[in-house]
C-alpha cells in the first residue's frame, strides 16, 4: 500500500516538474495564425495551404483565422494591414501572386510579424518568407509511368497558364516520359485559365482525338475526359483517384505541412528568419509526393521503377532539373 502511494506521489511530482521545466511541451499557448488568400480555398493551390493550417489547428498548435477571395484590386493590402493592426498575429500565411508589391509593402511595415507567402519572387529581410509548389520531382516520376503506359506513344498535358510553376512541372513530366520512352510525343495545351474545367475537358478530348492515351491533368476537367474515352490519366495537386478510379494511374501531390510545421517551430523557438522555403515543398522533406500508384492499372515492374526513382530522389542521387521555359504544343525528343 504505502509503497504504491509513494510511487504515485513520486510519479505525480515528476510530471509536475516536467511540465514546469518544459513549457514548450506542456500547456503551450497555441500560436495565433492568420491566413489571407487572393483566391478562394476551393481553388486547389490555396486549398493545399488551407488544409495544412487546418491540420495544425486541429492538433491544437495554432488558432487559425483565415479569409479568402480577397482579389487582386487593392483589397489584399487593406486586409493585411487590418490583420496586422488589430489581431496581432504570430504569423501571417497567404498567397501573394498578383499582389506581390502590396504584400511586401505591408510586410516591411510590420517587421516583427513573420509573413509567409506563396510567391514567384524571393524572400525579403527581415520577415518575408516565400514558398511555392515545387512538385517537379513527382511530376518526373509520373511522366516515367506515363511513358511506360502509353501504347500510342502520344501523351497529353492540359495545363493552365505557361507560368514558371506550371512550366516546370510540365517540363519535368515530359522529361520523365521521354527518359522512359524516347519514342514518346507529348502534346501540351494551355487553356489560359486557372478555372475552366469545361474547356480543359474539351482540350483533353482534342488530345485524345489526336491519339493521346495517357493525360496529365494539371487542371480540373481532364480526368473526366479520360474516363469518358477509356484512356488513362494522372492527377495533380491532390490524390484524384476518386474522380475516376478506373482511369487514374497516380497523382502528383503537394503538401504544405512540412513548410507550416517548420515555420511554426521556428517561431516557437524564437529563431524565425526570412527565407525561401522551397526545400520544404520538395520530395526529400515530404512537401511533394506521388500519390499511391494504381496497381490494377500499372504493371508491377513499372511501379517498381517508379518507387526506385522516388527512393533515388529522396536520397539525393537523382536530381530532377528545373526547366521553366514554355513547352511547345507538340514536344518530341530533341526539339
Amino acid at each position, binding site marked *: 500500500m504505502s509503497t504504491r502511494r509513494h510511487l504515485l506521489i513520486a510519479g505525480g511530482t515528476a510530471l509536475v516538474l516536467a511540465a514546469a521545466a518544459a513549457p514548450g511541451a506542456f500547456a503551450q499557448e497555441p500560436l495565433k495564425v492568420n491566413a489571407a488568400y487572393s483566391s*478562394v480555398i*476551393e481553388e486547389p493551390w490555396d486549398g493545399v495551404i488551407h488544409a495544412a493550417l487546418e491540420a495544425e489547428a486541429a492538433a491544437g498548435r495554432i488558432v487559425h483565422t483565415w479569409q479568402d477571395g480577397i482579389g487582386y484590386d487593392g483589397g489584399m493590402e487593406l486586409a493585411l494591414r487590418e490583420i496586422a493592426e488589430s489581431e496581432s498575429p504570430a504569423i501571417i500565411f497567404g498567397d501573394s501572386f498578383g499582389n506581390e508589391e502590396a504584400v511586401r509593402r505591408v510586410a516591411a511595415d510590420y517587421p516583427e510579424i513573420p509573413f509567409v507567402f506563396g510567391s514567384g519572387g524571393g524572400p525579403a529581410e527581415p520577415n518575408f518568407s516565400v514558398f511555392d509548389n515545387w512538385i517537379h520531382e513527382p511530376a518526373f516520376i509520373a511522366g516515367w509511368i506515363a511513358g511506360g503506359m502509353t501504347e500510342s506513344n502520344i501523351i497529353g498535358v492540359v495545363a493552365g497558364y505557361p507560368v514558371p510553376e506550371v512550366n516546370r512541372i510540365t517540363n519535368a513530366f515530359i522529361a520523365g516520359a521521354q527518359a522512359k520512352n524516347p519514342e514518346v510525343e507529348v502534346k501540351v495545351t494551355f487553356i489560359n485559365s486557372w478555372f475552366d474545367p469545361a474547356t480543359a475537358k474539351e*482540350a483533353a478530348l482534342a*488530345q485524345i482525338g489526336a491519339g493521346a492515351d495517357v493525360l496529365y491533368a494539371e487542371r480540373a476537367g481532364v480526368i473526366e475526359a479520360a474516363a469518358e474515352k477509356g484512356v488513362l490519366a494522372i492527377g495533380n495537386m491532390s490524390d484524384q483517384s*476518386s474522380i475516376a478510379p478506373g482511369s487514374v494511374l497516380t497523382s502528383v501531390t503537394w503538401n504544405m505541412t512540412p513548410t507550416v510545421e517548420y515555420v511554426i517551430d521556428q517561431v516557437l523557438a524564437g529563431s524565425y528568419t526570412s527565407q525561401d522555403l522551397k526545400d520544404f515543398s520538395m520530395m526529400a522533406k515530404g512537401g511533394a509526393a506521388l500519390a499511391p500508384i494504381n496497381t490494377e492499372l500499372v504493371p508491377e515492374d513499372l511501379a517498381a521503377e517508379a518507387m526506385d526513382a522516388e527512393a533515388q530522389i529522396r536520397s539525393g542521387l537523382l536530381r530532377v532539373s528545373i526547366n521553366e521555359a514554355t513547352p511547345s504544343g*507538340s514536344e518530341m525528343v530533341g526539339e
Partner: protein
Amino acid sequence: MIDGSFLGDLASATFRNATPLVYGTAGETVTERSGVLNLGIEGTMYVGAFTGFAVAWWVGDPLIGLLAAIVAGLLAGAVMGFLTVTLGANQHVSGLGLTIGLIGLSELGNRLLLSGSELQKIQPFPQWNPLAGLGDIGLVFQQYGLTYAAFLLVAPATWWLIGRTPFGLSLRAVGENPEAADAAGISVARTRYAALMIGGALMAVGGAFLTLAVLGAFTLDIIAGRGWVCLALVIFGRWGIWRGVLGALIFAFVYSLGLRLQIMPGFDGIPRELMLALPYLAVIAALALSGRNAPYPGAYLKPYRRS
C-alpha cells in the same frame, strides 16, 4: 493528320460546345425581344450550373437536378423582373448586380454544401448516338440529350414562340412600343416578367448542361464568360434565333478547331494565345460585319411607366 475522324470529331465537338451558347442565346433573345437587356445571364447560367448539380448530387438524379436548375432560372428571371419592371431600375446595373449576386450565392452554397478535400461527383447524363454505325460521320451524332434538345427542340420552339404565337406577338409589341401594346390591352409588366422567366430558365439549363452532362461536377467559374458570349450572339443574330444559333455554331467551331490545331505538329509557330482568342475575334469580326444598323428592339433598355 486532317482526316475523316478528325473532321467527325471536330463536328461533334462543335455541336457539343455550341450547346450552352444555344440555350443562353435563346433565353437572352426572348428576354431582349420584350425590351429588357438581361446582363444577369452570366449569373443565371452560373446558378443553373450550381443548383442543378447540388440537387442532382443530393437526390442522386441529374433529371431532378435539371428541373431544379429550371426553377432557379425562373426565380432569377423573376428577380430581374422585380428590379427592372416593377421598380423600373436601370437594366445595366440590375443585370450586373444580379450576376454578381447569383455567383456569390452559388459560391456560398458550394462552400456550405460541397466544399471539402474531395471533389463531389454525380453520374452525369449519358451521351447518345443513334447513328454510331456510320463511322466518322456517325461521330457527329455522339451527343448528350441536352444537345439534341437545344437544336431540335429549343431553337425551333423559340422561333415558333416569338413569331407564331399570341404570346410572341405581345412580346414583340411590348418590346417595340409598350405604349401601343398597353393601349391595345396587353400587360407590359406581365409580358416582360414572362419573357424574363422563360429566358432565365433557358439560360439556367445552358449552365446546368456543363455540370450535369459535360463534367458531372461543379467547380468555381464554371461558366467562364459563356454568358457574355451569348450577349454578343444575340446582336449577331439580329434578335432572331436562327442567326443566333448560327453564331453559336461559328463560335464553337473556331473554339474546337483552335484546341485541335494547338497540339498539331507544324502549328507551333502560331502563338497559342492567338488560337484561344480566335473564337472571340471571330465574333467581333462577325459583329463588325453584320452588326451595323442592328435592329434593336424599339423599347430596348427603357422601363415602362404608364403616363
